[in-house]
């Protein structure tokens, strides 16, 4: 059991981080805290990907000492995938933050429940 946990330590930490971020999304009512939760989930995915690519005893995939054999370097593919993930996460975070700014300007609050209450009130007044 303990050996298995030791062998999969990074994976388990990534899973726990993912759950922490997801529960932030569910339990927090503040929109900014929800965005922070989503970013924690992103970080969990990066940790999972980066630790899949690492191999003990090998070095970063940059030519060192003229060695061109594949057993010298770690796997470069997960590094590239993490880069893609970071770019997408930056874009999504910027989009969500600007939507939050618009919501705050209209309803003067960041609490999701209050915003929903105000939207419902507006609809009732319209009818």
């Amino acid at each position: 059991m303990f050996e298995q946990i030791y062998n999969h330590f990074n994976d388990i930490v990534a899973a726990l981080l993912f759950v922490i971020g997801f529960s932030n999304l569910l339990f927090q009512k503040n929109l900014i805290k929800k965005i922070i939760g989503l970013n924690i989930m992103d970080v969990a995915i990066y940790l999972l990907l980066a630790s899949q690519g690492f191999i003990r005893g090998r070095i970063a995939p940059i030519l060192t000492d003229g060695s061109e054999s594949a057993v010298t370097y770690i796997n470069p593919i997960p590094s590239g995938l993490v880069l893609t993930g970071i770019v997408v996460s930056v874009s999504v975070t910027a989009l969500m933050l600007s939507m939050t700014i618009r919501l705050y300007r209209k309803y003067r609050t960041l609490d999701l429940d209050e915003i929903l209450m105000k939207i419902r009130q507006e609809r009732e007044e319209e009818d």
Partner: protein
Amino acid sequence: MDRINNNEKKRFYTVFKIVATILMICLAASLIICMFDMPRLFSEEHPGENVVAERYIESGIEETGAVNFVAGMILDYRAFDTFGESNVLFAATICVMVLLLGHKPSDRSEHETVPRTVKNDVILKTIAKFAVPFILMFGIYVILNGHLSPGGGFSGGAIVGSGFILAAVSFGFDRMEKFLNKKSAGIITFVSLLVYCLAKSYSFFTGANHLESGIPLGTPGAILSSGLILILNICVGFVVACTMYSFFSLMRRGKI
């Protein structure tokens, strides 16, 4: 009426919290059980360590000329992927512009702090005067050495963008606007994406038809080497720097 509503709300939240907690515990348990079936970490028998990674490393230098294998991978073998990423950033800038641009100051609520212009902050100004040139220089170094050392267009562009943000905060947006406004940021991003698209389309066209592309690879390790990777890194760096600065500027004061 209100009290009934409040009671209902309270009951809803108790049920919601219990259900959500159970759901989260189940999710954590199932994820961790799944993780035990993942391949063993850090070992050489990892299934991700297959012919693809081997090919990227063993013939990477011959085919791309880049000393940094990751740069060779993302800007040569998988260049369309990176092109898509740059376009995602561009699309995100456009969406943020649609949401935040053109809001009159009267729309701001009274709770919102008016963007303070730090005009007389001596400490910030003095530090920024020393720090900004070095930050920009380091960012340009990271972009230009993307094929030789860790880094590349994305990380270097982020460093340059944060240098711009520091300059804008300490010296005021008016001075940044002289060279980085809506028009020039749009032109820089558009031209960079166009150059990227044309250069990489040409090399993919010639490569798919087994034609000579005529792009010299140079000696690996020299600054002017590895074919298109240096140009593509510069394009990506421009896009990322403009995007970073315009995100900050749009969120801070509603315009670039």
